């Protein structure tokens, strides 16, 4: 599997990662190399194998639908890069 420069730009966009033009070439080479390596998986027939998500095959545990956490807005917003009046600040989204 060989990724083109355009493939890398598209993946970077999907992943919301700014990648410099100089790095596009490096990622294309590295990622293609890793994908080639990963392709060894294709040699095995897995048509009748069930995928394994959890080693004990346990189901997702559910809890009662009750409030378990109190409001900790101030504590958590203290970590934010920019807040105002209890709101997270981001660049203007709507004109």
């Amino acid at each position, binding site marked *: 599997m060989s990724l083109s420069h355009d493939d890398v730009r598209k993946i970077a966009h999907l992943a919301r990662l700014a990648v410099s033009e100089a790095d596009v070439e490096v990622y294309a080479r590295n990622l293609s190399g890793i994908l080639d390596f990963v392709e060894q998986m294709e040699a095995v027939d897995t048509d009748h194998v*069930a995928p*394994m998500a959890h080693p004990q095959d346990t189901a997702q545990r559910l809890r009662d639908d009750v409030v378990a956490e109190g409001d900790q807005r101030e504590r958590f917003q203290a970590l934010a890069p920019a807040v105002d009046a209890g709101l997270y600040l*981001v660049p203007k989204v709507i004109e």
Partner: protein
Amino acid sequence: MHDKTIAELSAALAKGECSSVELTEHFLKRIESLDGGLNSFVTVTREQALAQAKEADARRASGEAGPLTGVPMAHKDIFCTQGVKTTCGSKMLNNFIAPYDATVVERFKAAGSPMLGKTNMDEFAMGSSNETSFHGPVKNPWDAERVPGGSSGGSAAAVAARLTPSATGTDTGGSIRQPAALCGISGLKPTYGRVSRWGMIAFASSLDQAGPMAASAEDCALLANAMSGFDARDSTSIERPVEDFTARLGEPLKGLRIGLPREFFGEGMDAGVAKAVEAAVEEYKKLGAVVKDVGLPNSGLSVPAYYVVAPAECSSNLARFDGVRYGYRCEDPRDLMDLYTRSRGEGFGAEVKRRIMLGTYALSAGYFDAYYLKAQKIRRLIADDFRKAFDEVDVILGPTSPSTAFKLGEKADDPVTMYLSDIYTIAVNLAGLPGMSIPAGQSEGLPVGLQLIGNYFDEARLLGVAHQYQLVTDWHRRIPEGFA
């Protein structure tokens, strides 16, 4: 004092031979004078450690001490520690002061173990050499030109240099066992779901598991007792009572069935490592164990499958770092998209970005079946191989790593070569089994790690098998020159 195990330090505290404050001060001084060349700590929490030591002494005086009360330790910087910087080895979190304690940290606090500080690691636990850390690489105390392994490289180096009696680690593809091997210490990766992942910064959620790192298997057992157990806050935590992990330390090995996987003893392993592992096998035979060959035919696919599962889960988990709610934010973003892409592009290092992109690609429309689903099916095949092997044997034994500690920079340019340094550890994570590494000999002055793999929830036996070996050998007692 630093050449003693936790069990011995705990006994010294109980007899009043020293106080926790003295002990904690001793290790803090060692960190201050010896860590400059190692870079194993990213944060030293001197005041907090001494305050906790004082509390531990008071607790001991009132007769309420447990085996870890007053014995200091360090935490890998992946665990959230309330009020203390928790960077996960990344520029992204270099300003992050955790607002709460991870369950693991909470449990060690409850056990009365003072925290000396936070240890260096590969960025977001992605690496096998500790070279991807934003804080710079950690040096191996056995040879400063060599890596300590990764991702729990700071924890392994700090324990090996006896800057702390123990440290926590996490193991997604070998990140406890491989650095333990390369630094000559003992480390346990428990069964997946044994130890809570709550407050442990996520890398690949279906594989991540925390565990103890210390000089001896007995110490690992004491630490595992404190950190294990069901936690409702971790949705994949196992609801199952935890036995006493020290219970089987004294069990004789006569008749123990040890499996040697043919696939782990082929080409690719350095001669010095092979020699040490073979000597360990002989030692086990002398202890009464019976050795037989077993097959893990699909284990060769573990590294390829891992490099789909882990990056896919990493791309999903690391989507939370958006430059909005916490962590790094770029300067002067033009618009929201620019804020996301530059905060992430500047905040993450090269290896993390590589894995995020790999995972994003594997999960993108049209590729899910060919990559993630295929890899999950291979996981099943790998787990089935182990199940079959454990019908015939009690534990599986082999090398932890194909080589001893490699040189800094030696594998940094080629991701696939670096990934293959975890070739013997990754299958265990994919299957969700418990695994250990213990020091078993040296090759050209560098430690060799012996890997022991147990059946699900069989940690107590695994620790016993390791402890019996350590009763008749002294590799776990060896301290690198300059740190004795």
